[in-house]
């Protein structure tokens, strides 16, 4: 999909995606960090709050304990009358606001065998301090925890909190101090009761707001203060753990009642919210204070922070979007222009110059390259046009030359109607470009036939014209000179005298007396023809020497002679035959030509020429013909 977008759009999308990703990472990390920082802050706050509250409770409990211990000293040190004990207790309750009630309970029997035991008790009531003897009314004080525990443990004891039935269902705890006679006998117990009603108030007044709550558990885990009133004294942290089958909560409770302090993840008993709990011990009573903070206040803060970050991030991305669009436009504008310009270029218009933007960047380089390419292309096109014109001219010239060449050689066979004393047949297959073969034959008189074959050097129109000139001269000279050598010598003089052309021609020329079969010939540098005798022998025309015609003036040409018997065939050819190449570059060669000719004994002139031409063609097998191929056969049939 990206591939189908423009560069600008793609760049915008990719940059925005990358920037968005980075922003998200930063925001995520920020949220994580701030969560940790907030958690640390919360921990510090919770711990401080817990410790401070625990300390406050501790101070109250200690002052109550001190009061009770002072009372114990007074009771054990002084022999007191019952009225004095009552008075002492009354003063304790009156002077200590936090002391709700105070007792001096004596072990039954310590004041004589009949002593049923007395428990003096003073308690604060709305109307003032009320005194009573707890032993009256069937209350077995000596079986109560506040009495039994200090007695058996032989040390002061904070009781487990309990509801005071007599005092109107107030949650109380009692600090009991055992008292001993000087002789070590157990005398009894003095106590101070403290109302725990203020604890719940204390805890609810903590500055926790909606963020959490505090609770207090006793030494054995019983909930003494908790926002859920139903829990108080009914549940312990362990019963809640049992109810919820929450072993982690039980472990936490064990840590708390062991007097540890800590800060742990926590799930609220009541709200079931994920929270943190800071707990601190209250050493004097063995209780433990828990301060619960809901995790969602952290989450809320982090979320608020996150929302701000998100808003800022979105704003940033928006700005970035504008910026990226602007930048990408500034980058892609020259590219678009280049694109438009190259489209014009591609349509073939090489004349509109490209505008090259200023600067030295890739687009400028590309534009410059395109402009250079445009100029190169333009030049190339011009060159190409010139070259094509030249080639067409050459081609035309070649065609003209070819036409001239073909018009110069006789092409009507049999050429002389009614002659039965000889056959003559020739083929000339011009090559595409090089070429300059010619052949000719003419009856000088009814009994003398002149046969000519030749090969002009060079090509094209000059060669064709040279050929035409050669033929015209030679025909003229042959009518004047009975000896072909003389005619050739004259021709040489004529052609050589126009020597600035540097052209020449190979020529074989023979005049055959058709009455006798006697033939006189001359050779100007041409391949000597073959004589295929009627009897089957293959001979070459005698070698007489002689150089090419028209090259050097004043050269002599010799005359030679041979005798033709009826049935003999004179086979003339140009080097296009022997130098015909096959696909592999091998030549047809004279030996192959001779071998082929031997097989053609007895054939007519036309059959022989066509057969030999066929062999050469078969040999070349489609290979490019590099030179004109000319074969001519004269078959002497004898005078009739």
């Amino acid at each position, binding site marked *: 999909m990206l591939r189908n977008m423009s560069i600008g759009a793609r760049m915008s999308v990719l940059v925005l995606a990358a920037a968005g990703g980075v922003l998200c990472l930063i925001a995520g990390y920020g949220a994580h960090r701030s969560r940790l920082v907030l958690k640390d802050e919360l921990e510090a706050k919770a711990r401080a709050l817990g410790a401070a509250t625990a300390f406050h409770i501790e101070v109250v409990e200690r002052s109550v304990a001190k009061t009770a211990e002072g009372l114990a000293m007074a009771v054990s040190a002084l022999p007191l009358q019952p009225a004095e004990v009552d008075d002492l207790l009354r003063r304790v309750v009156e002077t200590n606001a936090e002391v709700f009630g105070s007792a001096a309970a004596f072990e039954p029997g310590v004041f004589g065998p009949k002593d049923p035991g007395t428990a003096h008790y003073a308690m604060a009531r709305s109307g003032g301090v009320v005194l009573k003897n707890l032993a009256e009314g069937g209350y077995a004080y000596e079986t109560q925890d506040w009495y039994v525990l200090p007695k058996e443990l032989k040390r002061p004891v904070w009781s487990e909190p309990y509801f005071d039935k007599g005092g109107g269902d107030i949650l109380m705890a009692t600090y009991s101090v055992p008292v001993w006679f000087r002789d070590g006998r157990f005398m009894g117990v003095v106590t101070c009761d403290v109302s725990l009603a203020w604890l719940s108030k204390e805890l609810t007044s903590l500055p926790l707001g909606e963020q959490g709550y505090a609770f207090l558990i006793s*030494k*054995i885990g019983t909930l003494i203060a908790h926002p859920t009133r139903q829990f108080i004294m009914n549940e312990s942290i362990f019963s809640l753990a049992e109810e919820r089958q929450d072993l982690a909560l039980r472990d936490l409770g064990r840590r708390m009642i062991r007097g540890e302090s800590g800060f742990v993840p926590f799930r609220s008993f009541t709200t079931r919210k994920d929270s943190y709990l800071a707990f601190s011990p209250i050493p004097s009573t063995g209780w433990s204070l828990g301060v619960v903070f809901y995790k969602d206040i952290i989450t809320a803060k982090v979320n608020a922070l996150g929302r701000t970050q998100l808003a800022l991030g979105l704003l940033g991305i928006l700005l970035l979007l504008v910026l990226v669009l602007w930048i990408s436009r500034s980058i892609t504008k020259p590219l678009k222009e280049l694109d438009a310009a190259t489209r014009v270029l591609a349509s073939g218009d090489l004349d509109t110059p490209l505008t090259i933007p200023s600067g030295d960047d890739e687009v400028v380089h590309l534009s410059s390259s395109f402009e250079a390419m445009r100029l190169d292309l333009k030049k190339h096109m011009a060159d190409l046009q010139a070259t094509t014109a030249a080639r067409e001219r050459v081609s035309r010239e070649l065609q003209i030359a070819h036409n001239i060449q073909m018009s110069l050689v006789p092409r009507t066979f049999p050429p002389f109607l009614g002659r039965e004393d000889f056959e003559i047949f020739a083929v000339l297959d011009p090559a595409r470009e090089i070429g300059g073969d010619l052949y000719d034959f003419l009856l000088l008189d009814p009994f003398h036939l002149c046969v000519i074959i030749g090969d002009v050097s060079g090509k094209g129109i000059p060669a064709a014209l040279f050929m035409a000139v050669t033929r015209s001269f030679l025909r003229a000279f042959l009518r004047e000179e009975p000896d072909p050598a003389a005619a050739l010598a004259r021709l040489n003089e004529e052609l050589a005298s126009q020597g600035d052309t540097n052209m020449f021609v190979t020529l074989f020329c023979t005049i055959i007396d058709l009455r006798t079969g006697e033939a006189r010939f001359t050779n100007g540098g041409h391949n000597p023809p073959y004589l295929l005798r009627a009897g089957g022998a293959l001979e070459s025309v005698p070698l007489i020497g002689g150089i090419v015609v028209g090259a050097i003036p004043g050269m002599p040409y010799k005359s030679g002679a041979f005798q033709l018997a009826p049935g003999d065939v004179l086979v003339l050819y140009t080097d296009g035959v022997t130098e015909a190449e096959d696909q592999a570059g091998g030549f047809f060669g004279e030996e192959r030509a001779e071998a082929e000719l031997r097989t053609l004994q007895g054939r007519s002139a036309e059959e022989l020429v066509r057969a030999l031409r066929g062999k050469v063609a078969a040999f070349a097998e489609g290979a490019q013909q590099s030179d004109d191929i000319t074969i001519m056969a004269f078959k002497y049939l004898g005078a009739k």
Partner: protein
Amino acid sequence: MRRILRSALIAVLLAFVTGTGASKAGAGKPLPIRLILQWTHQAQFAGCYVALEKGFYKARGLDVSLLPGGPGIAPATWLEEGKAEAGTIWLTDALVARDRGVPLVQLAQIVNRSNLILVGWKNKGIRVLGDVEGRRVSLWGAPLDAPFDGLFRARGLRVRRVPQYDSINLFLQGGVDACSAMSYNEANRIYEAGVDPGEVTAFALRDLGFGLPEDGLYCLESYFKAHRPECEALAAATVEGWQEAARDPEGALRLVMRYARSSHIPANEAHMRWMLGTILPSILPAPGDPWTLGHLSAEDYARAADLLRGQGLIRTAVPLNVFLPSEASHAP
């Protein structure tokens, strides 16, 4: 005519089987019965709450009100003083009261299997029973301590006894090395005080040959004689209440919590669930258990009497048919 006769016969039979016939046959006004429980409201009395709330008492023509007990309340005394017509009492308590002249008769033996245990601190070296030798052990007062005393005596163990009253805080604070406990109550209170099971050792007295039946339903002999059908109906309805509690423990638990809350007693559901779950198997016999639901066997009666007599807690025990007048009359 015949059909009417047969219907009447079936009605009589049905009434007899359900045990309601006698009172149904009587006046339409239900008989008020105050039933004093031997402790504060808790799952130990779940069968009574179920019988009352599900109308099992009412169906039998009884207007039962449940009176909570607690520290300092002895049901036998309440019966003697006429503050209640019926009460739940431990077998040993009942035998002692009878010996002291309170003419109690048993209507039903509710808890037939002992739930008494001895719990000791492992960290104070209590791992086998012999470890209590010479150690401080808190025990409830007589006659609840009779099985413990019998056990110690039988094993030749001497312990330093510390009186145990209504709480286990002395044990929890480490004031004693071991204490007496009920498997359905204190055992779990110790657990709910944050003590892990691995930290204490528990010895069940029934495994050591000193298990005795516990809670039973009682009234005075004179009341039984005056209201025998109602007394038998009370026993049958209470037993039915326990059967229903076993059938639907969560329903029973809801009633227990309601009663506990109404009397402002510290109670939590986890503990009450434990209590109900633990006490039910000591009431309703499982296949193979040697007792019959609601009935005291002659052997258990004799064992309890022997144990108490051996410890000098009673001089003598009345014959079983006196102690269990309703059983005696049904016997052939």
